[in-house]
């Protein structure tokens, strides 16, 4: 039996990762939609059995129209928040994935797919967290470098001394070095 799943995801790398997981769990067809434009219509045209979208995506509200699509009482797409599977739903929420399923799709067919989706979305979440940590570290290093440069010029000291001074000040004030550096950079810009 065919199982057609639509994944709404902008980032192609993430989308591919999720798609692989879903195919491994028995999805016969996976369609990736990466654009918000006409989202509800595009999904309706696919006639999917299930739609997956990140919980944090503001585009999710576009999908709500589908729950009203052909008359409110026969609900072609019902939302997957099933109390009988509350463990899995909680896992889905903490992994940041939300799912819409076609009404009447049997529970045992949904389960492996959703489990696979949860695992993949967790991976995506972890990647995203790592990326933002790396980015933050980079930015912090940049601002510390600028502060060092300011100190070296203003006090005529070498790099090591400037670094030591920043670190000492941060420790004395119980602050992060990047914060002290940022304060110095901001202040120096004001004094220009």
């Amino acid at each position, binding site marked *: 039996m065919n199982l057609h799943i639509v994944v709404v995801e902008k980032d192609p790398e993430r989308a591919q990762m999720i798609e692989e997981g879903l195919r491994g769990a028995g999805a016969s067809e996976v369609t990736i939609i990466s654009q918000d*434009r006409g989202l509800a219509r595009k999904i309706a045209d696919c006639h999917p059995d299930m739609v997956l979208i990140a919980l*944090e995506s*503001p585009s*999710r*509200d576009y999908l709500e129209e589908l729950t009203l699509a052909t008359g409110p009482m026969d609900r072609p797409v019902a939302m997957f928040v099933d109390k009988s599977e509350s463990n899995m739903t909680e896992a889905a929420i903490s992994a940041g994935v*939300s799912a819409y399923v076609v009404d009447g799709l049997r529970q045992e067919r949904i389960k492996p797919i959703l489990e696979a989706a949860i695992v993949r979305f967790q991976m995506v979440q972890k990647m995203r967290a790592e990326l933002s940590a790396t980015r933050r570290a980079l930015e912090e290093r940049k601002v510390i470098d600028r502060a060092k440069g300011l100190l070296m010029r203003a006090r005529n000291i070498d790099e090591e001394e400037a670094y030591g001074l920043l670190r000492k000040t941060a420790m004395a004030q119980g602050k992060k070095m990047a914060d002290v550096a940022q304060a110095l950079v901001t202040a120096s810009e004001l004094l220009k």
Partner: protein
Amino acid sequence: MKPAPLRLGYLPLVDAAPFLIAQSLGFAKREGISLELRPAASWSALRDMLAMGVVDGAQMLVPVPVASALGLGGMPARFEALQILNMNGNVIGVSQRLAARMQNDGYEFDFRDARKAGAALLRACGKTLRIGVPFPFSTHAELVDYWLTHLGLPLPENLEIRTVPPPLMPDALDAGEIDAFCVGEPWGSAAVDRGLAHLLLPGTAIWGFAPEKALTVRQGWAEDNPDIAGRLMRMIWRSCRWLGTDRNRELASDILSDKLPITAEVIDRAMTGRMLTSLQGQEQATSYMIEFFRGAATFPWRSQAAWIGMRLAQRHGLDPIISAQKAAATFRPDLYRFHLRGIGADLPGASGKVEGALSVPTAVASDQGKTILLPDRFYDGQVFDPDATNSG
């Protein structure tokens, strides 16, 4: 008092103010609440967080608990409204293309007269009119529907009311996906500032005093947790009272601009009712642009829920009378009286009222005799009496 943990979900909008202020100004602490605020990216996500118990309460579009009682839209749970967080706060805007046509036809953007604006819009739009609203179940959708269907004019062949998440509204206009919108501030002003939209009307021009967001919980939660529910409701009531005081509004805009992705200047427009309708246009003073407290704004009138229930029923083929009754039951003025007695809250004697009957501020019976209701007229002069079966 041992601090009780409480989790509330919200969307980053101007009308999240009662939650944000409760945390910033110590109203939570005063009630012994250790408050955790969780932002959500969409109404559907927030609704699911509430349904699943990820949050205890949420800032919710008023029609959402009503729709949950009517079984519309695949709601995962039943909800009820304990208090109204704010009245009004919405604007209707049109694309520059439409605005230019309306202007050529001799329409003067008065930001006031819904009948004239509606007629001008229908004349200018031709066969197709696509209006963006934030959610299928929203006061915005109700205002737009009531406005267009009561003009007594033929509607465009292709009239679509589309869901567009508020922060994406300016982009949707820019991309030509919609011709007009009804959205909560600051997103209407955001579209104006980007030179994409001309504001046509405030929501108040259609319904003078329309409930917008409600403090919403799962059905039965407040009865199961009476102590924390009482603290929560007192906290929100104090927060709304503070926000309802004119001299606090500037500070409110400042505090909100820290928590929302918007500058204080833009927030201020809704807060003070001085709306900039276009980049070329002048400022329009708008009464009751957003109300958090005055006019018994916080009181969950069952008649408001009944009106929304009846309108939803008419559009979705349900029985309007039964739906109005089911809808009314999702508003809890009984809990409002129970929990807010004795802290200075004025408690109206009735739980429902005739909607749309007031064109001037009017005093009504209450336990302290201080309740003044604000003008709540529908633009076409209709009234809705929840007790009359032939209403609507």
